[in-house]
C-alpha cells in the first residue's frame, strides 16, 4: 500500500518531539479523518529555520509526511519553506495512495500554521501566507468516484 520511502519515514520518523520556547507552533486537525498534527519551528534572526519538530496523531501517511516535511524545511528560509507543498512532500515520498492524499495536507498546513504563529508573535507579515484554518478540508485532489 505504501512506498518504501513512506514506510521508512513511518518506521523511523525524523524530528519527532517538541521544541521548548519555539519561535512558532502550529496545530491543525484534518476534518476528513479527525487526525491532528503539531509542528514546532525554531527560526533564527535571519529568518532561517534552524530546527523543526512534530507530533502527530494520525495514520501512517500522516506520520511519514510530517517526518519528510520537517526534513524538507530544515535549514530553509521562510519563503523557501512556503514552497514545501503537500505535492512536493508526496513526490519526495514516491507518492501516496489516492485515499491518503489528504493526509499530506496536514503537514503543509501545520507548517503554515507554525509560520503564522511566528509572524504574529514577531509582528511581521509573511508574503503569500494566509491565516490557517484550524480544521483543514481538502479541495484540490480528485475524489474517487462514489457509486
Amino acid at each position: 500500500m505504501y512506498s518504501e520511502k513512506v514506510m521508512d519515514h513511518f518506521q523511523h520518523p525524523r524530528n519527532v518531539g517538541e521544541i521548548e520556547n519555539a519561535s512558532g507552533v502550529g496545530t491543525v486537525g484534518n476534518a476528513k479523518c479527525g487526525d491532528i498534527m503539531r509542528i514546532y519551528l525554531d527560526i533564527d534572526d535571519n529568518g532561517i529555520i534552524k530546527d523543526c519538530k512534530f507530533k502527530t496523531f494520525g495514520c501512517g501517511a500522516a506520520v511519514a509526511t510530517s517526518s519528510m516535511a520537517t526534513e524538507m524545511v530544515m535549514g530553509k528560509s521562510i519563503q523557501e519553506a512556503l514552497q514545501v507543498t503537500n505535492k512536493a512532500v508526496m513526490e519526495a515520498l514516491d507518492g501516496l495512495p489516492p485515499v491518503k492524499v489528504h493526509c499530506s495536507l496536514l503537514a503543509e498546513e501545520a507548517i503554515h500554521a507554525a509560520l503564522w504563529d511566528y509572524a504574529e508573535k514577531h509582528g511581521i507579515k509573511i508574503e503569500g501566507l494566509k491565516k490557517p484554518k484550524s480544521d483543514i478540508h481538502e479541495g484540490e485532489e480528485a475524489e474517487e468516484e462514489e457509486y
Partner: protein
Amino acid sequence: MKKLIYLDNAATTKTAPEVVEAMLPYFTEYYGNPSSVYEFAGKSKQAVDAARKTIADSLGAKPEEIYFTAGGSESDNWALKATAEAYASKGKHIITSKIEHHAILHTCEYLEKRGFEITYLDVDENGVVKLDELEKAIRPDTILISVMFANNEIGTIQPIEEIGAIAKEHGILFHTDAVQAFGQLPINVDVCHIDMLSASGHKLNGPKGIGFLYIRKGVKIRSFVHGGAQERKRRAGTENVPGIVGLGKAVERAMSSMEERTAKERETRDYLIERVLTEIPYCRLNGDRTRRLPNNANFSFQFLEGESLLIMLDMKGICGSSGSACTSGSLDPSHVLMAIGLPHEIAHGSLRLTLNEEITKEDMDYVVESLKEIIDKLRSMSPLYED
C-alpha cells in the same frame, strides 16, 4: 518465514486444508453442470444436495430452505431488497440496528432512496440492541426486522431469540445477518423464529465467494439474480459446485468442533483481554464482556490512531484490524464504535483482534509485549498525550 500471528479471523479465515481437499475433485473430475441430464453431472448434483443438507441440519432447517449465494453481502442484499419488493403493498417500514454491517446499512440507504422508511435501533454501551426501542418502533406498516446475530467489530451477541419472538408476535418477517455468528454459536432457526438468515463461507474456514441465504418456507420473496432455473428458480447462475462442496465441508467441520474450539478460543482470548486491560493504561474493551463471540477482542487505546498501530503490529508479524476490513477504504471512524458512544478520537484508536483455534497463549504474550512497545512509541509521538 517471517513470524505471522493472524488475528483477523473476522475479516476472513484460512480455508481449512480438508475443505480444499473436498473441493478439488469438483474442479477437474466432477466438473459437470448440476442441471445437466447426463449421469456424469449427477455427481455434481449429489454433492450440492449433500452440502445443502449438512447446512440445513446445522440450523434445524429443511434442505429446500437453503439457497446458495456468492457470500454474505449478496445474501443480505437479497433478503432486504426482495422482502421490500415482495411486501411493499403491505408496508414500507423496515427496522434494523445502528451497528449492522454495511451490506445491510448501505442496502437500507438504497431502499430509503426508493421510498422505504428505515428505523435504525440504538444499542446500549455494550452494543446490545434495545428491545424496548424495538417494541416501540414497530408500526402497522413494518414488514421486516433485520438485526445481526453477532457484531463483526465488537463481537456483541444480540438477543436474537427475544427479537424473533417479538417479530413473530407482531407477524413481521425477521432476518438476521449471521455471517459472524454462524459456525461460532449454535443457531436454530425455529427456536429463534428466524425467517431469513445470511451466512458466508470464508468466515468459517470455508472458501470465499460462496454463502447462503436461509429462507423459511412460505416467505414470498423472489429472485435477486434472475435467469436460469437454479436454486428452485430463486437464484440464477451455474452452481459454484466446488464452492458449495467446500462450504458444506466447512460447516460440517465447524459444527462438530464448535464446543471444543470455541472453549479454547474463549480461554486464550480472555487471557489476552486480562493482560491488556491490566498492563496497558488508557485502554478499554469494547463490546459486552461476556455476551460476545468467543474469538473476538476489541480495544480502544487513547491518544493514538488505529492505522499507525496496525502497521506497526504488522511489522511485528501481527495481523489485526481497526474497524472492519470492508470499510478500510473509508476514513470515517467505525459506525459501531460511535453507536456504543465512543468519542471520535477514541474510536479512532481501536484495534480488533479475532482469534482462531491455532492461536496460543504464548502468541498472546508476544502480542501484548508488542502492543506495549508500539503504544508507548505512538503515544510519545502524539500531540494529544501528556498535554
